[in-house]
């Protein structure tokens, strides 16, 4: 499972994506993904907000993650 990173999220991790196939401990829900990110990269907890998109739609914490999903971390947006 790949997780795409954008904006400050990319800077925090130092990569444009995280591949959970490599690390082995794939999170099963949006909430679990958030917990894992906050634990691994404490800088995430300092952001104004952090959203997760599953298959390019905003996803709430209870959404289940499947291995084929396109998952993205959406730090505070600032277009316009």
């Amino acid at each position, binding site marked *: 499972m790949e997780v795409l990173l954008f904006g*400050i999220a990319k800077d925090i991790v130092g990569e444009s994506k995280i591949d959970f196939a490599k690390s082995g401990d794939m999170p099963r829900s949006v909430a679990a993904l958030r917990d894992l990110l906050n634990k691994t990269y404490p800088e995430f907890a300092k952001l104004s907000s952090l959203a997760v998109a599953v298959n390019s739609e905003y996803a709430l914490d209870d959404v289940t993650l499947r291995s084929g999903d396109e998952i993205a971390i959406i*730090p505070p*947006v*600032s*277009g*316009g």
Partner: protein
Amino acid sequence: MKKTIIEIVDAIDVSKTYMELSSPKSGGICVFIGTVREFTQGEEVVSLEFETYRKMALQEMEKIAMEAVKKWKLNSVVIRHAIGTKKIEDPVVVVGASAPHRAACFEACRFLIDTLKERVPIWKKEIFKNKTVWVSAHP
């Protein structure tokens, strides 16, 4: 048939927006252009850098356009955002709406830019002389 133009581009040509929105059914066209301002909170900006999660951004822009067309009975909508490096005075976003009457096109145009800023996955980094800042990232 309602016309909507949704794009993420490298450089915006503002002058064509009017023709894209013009229609014999419209009495009013409202266009908003967001440009790079030379000072942010008293600090001189060198440039801005925009990046996007393109697939999702286009989808969210499309949803915003559809919401506006439905709510204000618009004849056409344009939402066009630029990405990459933008210098002072460059246009970074253009949104516009045309409608039979002016109240609708003004309200819709304001909705388009306000909602874009709230939920379209585009990120802006401010480049100053001595630092860079991801806008809105921290409280």
